[in-house]
């Protein structure tokens, strides 16, 4: 590892050492190799493309499946002090998009969706400027074998051939052997690719699951836990309404500064919440999974799932926000008998049924840009050359796969054995050390407060309510001007 890399690691990112996997990937990129990086959530995947960009210069194009993920990356880079980052997506009008394209040479990072990247004007401009590094984020979306398959990712092989980047970095947190093979084939990079795979295990996160008979019990459990749980933390909910209501309860009844966070919030509010969370003015975020958090807060001590997700991938992703500083943290899942029905309903969300597929294929153009997730998905399939039968088969397969995922995930939740072992086994990893008291609770934990003591996360906190934080914010215009400008 040369000195320049370590200097940039310190000066730009403030780290003294790399995390496992990072150095190997970065060296591969700098050697202009194609790299497939399979790294767990929270292991610093973004650094793997950001750092080489600072060393090599030139434009790094990051392909991302969701606008929210792109915005998250932009925010993260902004918070690092980097302004030469831009996201080109459908929320911008054509004038803005053209302005960005003409000024593209002033940027280091371009975040873009595969659909936009495939546009002729975008490709032409990128060919003129030249792409140093092409990053395919969430690369598993290219595989038809994965639950997150996105038809638009199939274009990336052709796009990559046209762009001819110096190197291609494929990043994902979760990919089975079959999916890995698929990624390489679809992108046409198999022969030369270096694979960097690391275990998804996060040994510093204790895995705990509590049994709650109903919703009331969940609220009671939260009220019992939070006054003694080391802060800050994130609580995940399956609905915006619940997240909003609980943030209020936590703040008013427990005096802990809390805010809710979901995709329907105004942009300014999302940013303010993130900034306050980063600045320790907010201690608890009640979030939905619909929106990526985008913040790389290292000292999150707990992630609670008020509503558990429907698969291992989401679970791993969400608990992975805890303990990025390597310190002891905890993931607590609330399980109630009612949850299964809710999870089952979620599986069908956004997936078209046979009638919709039939209707769509009679007149596809009629359903372009409806804004309906199910029809948008069909449109993407159709645009990528899938016929009705293929789509029906694929979606049936997808649903079965989702159901299997849910069944497996529920077995994990209901397990009386070592949950970490089950989690790792799902991703093809093995436990590196035997189960102990710092690993996970086997079965449903009847005494979570004891567990907190056992792993050193029990506190008697003196919480600062958000109202108090807000009370320190000036309200008169003269005070505000003094506060922000003097």
């Amino acid at each position: 590892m040369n000195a320049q890399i370590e200097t940039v690691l310190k000066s730009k990112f403030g780290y003294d050492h790399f995390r496992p996997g990072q150095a190997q990937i970065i060296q591969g990129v700098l050697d202009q190799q194609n790299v497939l990086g399979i790294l767990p959530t929270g292991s610093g995947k973004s650094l793997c493309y950001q750092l080489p960009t600072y060393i090599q210069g030139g434009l790094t194009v990051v392909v991302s499946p969701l606008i929210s993920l792109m915005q998250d990356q932009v925010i993260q880079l902004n918070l690092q002090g980097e302004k030469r980052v831009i996201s080109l997506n459908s929320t911008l009008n054509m004038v803005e998009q053209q302005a960005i394209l003409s000024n593209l040479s002033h940027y280091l990072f371009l975040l873009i969706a595969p659909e936009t990247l495939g546009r002729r004007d975008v490709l032409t401009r990128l060919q003129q400027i030249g792409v140093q590094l092409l990053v395919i984020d969430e690369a598993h979306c290219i595989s038809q074998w994965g639950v997150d398959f996105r038809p638009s990712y199939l274009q990336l092989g052709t796009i990559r051939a046209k762009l001819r980047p110096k190197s291609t970095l494929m990043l994902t947190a979760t990919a089975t052997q079959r999916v890995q093979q698929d990624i390489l084939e679809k992108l046409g990079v198999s022969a030369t690719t270096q694979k960097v795979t690391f275990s998804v295990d996060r040994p510093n996160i204790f895995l705990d699951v509590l049994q709650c008979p109903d919703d009331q019990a969940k609220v009671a459990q939260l009220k019992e836990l939070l006054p003694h749980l080391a802060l800050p933390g994130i609580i995940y909910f399956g609905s915006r309404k619940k997240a909003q209501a609980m943030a209020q309860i936590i703040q008013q009844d427990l005096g802990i500064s809390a805010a809710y966070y979901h995709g329907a919030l105004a942009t300014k509010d999302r940013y303010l919440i993130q900034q306050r969370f980063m600045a320790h003015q907010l201690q608890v975020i009640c979030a939905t999974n619909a929106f990526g958090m985008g913040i790389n807060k290292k000292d999150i001590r707990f992630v609670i799932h008020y509503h558990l997700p429907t698969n291992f991938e989401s679970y791993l992703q969400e608990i992975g926000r805890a303990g990025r500083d390597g310190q002891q943290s905890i993931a607590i899942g609330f399980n109630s008998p009612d949850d299964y029905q809710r999870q089952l309903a979620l599986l069908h969300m956004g997936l078209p049924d046979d009638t919709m597929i039939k209707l769509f294929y009679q007149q596809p153009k009629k359903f372009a840009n409806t804004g309906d997730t199910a029809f948008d998905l069909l449109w993407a399939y159709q645009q990528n050359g899938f016929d009705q039968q293929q789509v029906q088969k694929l979606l049936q397969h997808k649903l079965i796969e989702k159901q299997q995922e849910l069944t497996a995930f529920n077995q994990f939740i209901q397990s009386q054995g070592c949950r970490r072992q089950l989690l790792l086994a799902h991703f093809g990893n093995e436990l590196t050390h035997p189960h102990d008291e710092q690993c996970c609770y086997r079965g449903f934990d009847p005494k979570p407060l004891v567990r907190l003591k056992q792993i050193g996360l029990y506190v008697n906190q003196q919480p600062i309510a958000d109202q108090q934080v807000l009370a320190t914010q000036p309200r008169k215009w003269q005070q505000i001007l003094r506060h922000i400008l003097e």
Partner: protein
Amino acid sequence: MEAIDLIRFFSDQPQRYKAIYYGLVGKKTISNLLAAKKNNYLVYFHSWPRLSLTTFQKCLQGLLRADFVAAGEVADSFYLTAAGQHYRQAQQPAIFIPSYYQGLCIPQGQQGIELLYLAIQVISEYHHGQKHYIPGTTNYLLQQRVRQWFQQVKHYPQLSQQLVQELTRWLTALPADQADFVAQNFQGYQFGFQQSELADKTPLSGYSQQLVQLDALALLLQYLAQQPQAFPLLGQLLIPDQWVQPILSYSANLTYQAFMAGQSLKQIGYKRRLKDSTIREHILEVALLMPGFDFEQLKQQDDLPPTDYFNIRVAEIQEMSGHERPN
């Protein structure tokens, strides 16, 4: 859209609901302008450009269900019921009435506000040596504009103090409550309120909160045009000519100038190579929007029968007494 945001535009006289919608989003046709003038909401023209028809209609359905409005005889027209009037009275504190804002003249007001707030944030963070922050707007063109402005002004001596002076001059001229609310919307170094926190502290509806800021912006733009020497920083950011447009469209104004110079409508059409109907549209726009319009001069020049659409419209406009009353 809250109930009060729509109810404020209704009166005991039936009016077409779509004209209100088109007025708010700024669809400038003679018929929409006429409806706005007649029903006293011309000031609010173009004040809610992103309002969707679905949201608007949902709100109207809510008013109907609550019996706050009732259907008039003409299709799609509604009037305020006694219950509606009572509700409106009770909700008076939620309504803000602008003093400086004229929607037709500041069609991009919302963006103007975003631009100003971003500029304040940039100076604030710069002043505190903070580079690691998230800009308050994601609008690319506004970000570029502020970036360009910042490059122009960043070496200004005592930059942040100068900005404080300019903001003070502006905010002092506003009523204290309005100035406080505007400043509470600023973002800056370790400062900023969420929408919900702001809403908790004011009785104003969401739309009125926007109007408070648009109104303040209108005053700032007036100052920037009238006293440019007092605003060396903000004057370079918000160039009044780019943000304030004349109330008349360019073409209607040319027709008006020719009309004032004594030319007949036919002569104007001939000289400007425009159809008679276009010239009459211009005259209607002028009659609607220019307070001192000379109706007598028009009558002398006009040779159309009184039953003609144009003359009926002219008579209608003339009948509207005085200026708009604010809602």
